[in-house]
């Protein structure tokens, strides 16, 4: 495969939107346990707006698509996840420059730039029990697989497994950031909702690339 063009990226976002819709109740239930019971609604509102936006004003190239996605998320989600996911896509957009199809390395680098932007915005680190605990391991797995010469589809598949493990690993953590941190020790024993939606984002990328191949 040559790389992810604007259609491939659009596929990614549509698959993610569908996946968020499917898991909306689960995300909200997880947030009810250690937060305020809105993460499912937030992500669903945002991704539905993203998909609508893609249909209404189809972007010309990857940078435009990623920027539009970031802006729509920031404008429509609110809460904690809006600025964080929004920043992720805005930084990805800056990182891809004018390319029309993102090769594996470009995609991986852009994703890392996006996650770094998110981390800076959230002032978070690994082990805080946030979406970064799913995204961080996914980035490392992606780079490692690509370094081993795997194609993007396989590498994203590995990244998705790493994100899932990272998500699972949030369960015993005591939250240090976000609303769950108010619970202190009581936050342990609950899977983080943001890490859960982040793992779905990586899974959607793997699926989008696999389907495009």
């Amino acid at each position, binding site marked *: 495969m040559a790389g992810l063009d604007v259609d491939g990226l659009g596929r990614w976002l549509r698959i993610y939107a569908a996946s968020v819709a499917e898991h909306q109740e689960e995300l*909200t239930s997880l947030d009810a346990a250690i937060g*305020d*019971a*809105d993460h499912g*609604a937030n992500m669903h509102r945002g991704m539905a707006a993203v998909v609508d936006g893609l249909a209404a004003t189809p972007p010309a190239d990857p940078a435009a698509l990623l920027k539009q996605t970031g802006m729509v998320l*920031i*404008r*429509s989600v609110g809460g*904690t996840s809006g600025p964080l996911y929004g920043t992720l896509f805005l930084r990805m957009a800056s990182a891809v420059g004018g390319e029309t199809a993102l090769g594996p390395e470009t995609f991986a680098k852009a994703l890392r730039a996006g996650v770094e932007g998110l981390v800076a915005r959230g002032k978070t680190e690994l082990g805080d029990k946030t979406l970064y605990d799913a995204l961080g391991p996914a980035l490392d797995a992606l780079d490692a697989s690509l370094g081993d010469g795997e194609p993007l589809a396989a590498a994203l598949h590995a990244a998705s497994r790493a994100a899932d493990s990272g998500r699972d690993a949030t369960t015993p953590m005591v939250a240090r950031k976000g609303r769950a941190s108010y619970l202190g020790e009581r936050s342990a024993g609950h899977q983080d909702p943001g890490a859960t939606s982040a793992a779905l984002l990586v899974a959607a990328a793997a699926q989008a690339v696999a389907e495009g191949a």
Partner: protein
Amino acid sequence: MKKLLNDPADLVAESLRGLDRAHPELRVDHENRIIYRADAPVSGKVGLLSGGGSGHEPAHAGFIGPGMLDAVCAGEVFTSPVPDQMAEATKKIDGGAGVLHLVWNYTGDVMNFDMAAELAAAETDTTVEAVVMNDDVAVEDSLFTAGRRGTGAAIAVEKIVGAAAEQGRSLSELADLARRVNDNSRSMGMALTSCTVPAKGSPTFDLPDDEIEIGIGIHGEPGRRRVPLAPAREIAQMLVDPVLADRDFTGGDGVLVFVNGTGATPLLELYLMYGEIAALLEKAGVVPVRTLVGPYVTSLDMAGCSVSITQLDDELLRLWDAPVATSGLRWGM
């Protein structure tokens, strides 16, 4: 779930439509979900902007008007509004003296207001300052966490800074004043029952019939601990003790005591709680000189209450007593 609504997805938008019809002294920008004074911007006056998730009514729109806020942004239920709203609201209330963002300390609110300030700086020449309000002693404070939540004391900050803004004070003076009132304030809350977020349709948490949650947040976030249901007298103690342990309130010119209802608790019970709380304060040498009792910062249909104490001095007392004309707080005009 039994609620007075049509589709949960339309609740905030439709509620704002009712608010708009009910209050000719306010304007509502429905697209951006901004509520602002009909006479905004007030020329030469610093604009005061606050806001946050919906579900806390009368906070936040109930505190817009002469002597208090100039505008608020309304988010979805329990979800911070977005930077575009805040940037647009900032423009609407800039009377040339700058705009102060009064931000309730939640990760989402802080990030969105940060981004709004960046937007405003990029797009306009409005000077923006932000003060984050964090009064909730239920939460451990630390640089490495999200810090304390902004709860009831925001009402004192918004009222007092609102009065000072009417006097024509400068942006930096008002920001200092806001920080001072916030520093002077501590709060602690409890819940008898969970609230039900309409989009979820069922209670956020299960609380057995014989337990209560101490240290609850205003979004139904679980609190410090669960304890058996207790008489009001003991509950008052569980709220007052951590507040007084966190700050000395015996000095100055007495305190403002704010007993807040979280939504479903009747005023009959809130007054009883105020009686218990005032008795405990007096025993501890803390002198209530101003009182506010009622549902001002609610959590949808949660039953429970919170107490906020603000240390007053001569200046703060005068600013608290100054005229205010909002639908939530009104006196002197």
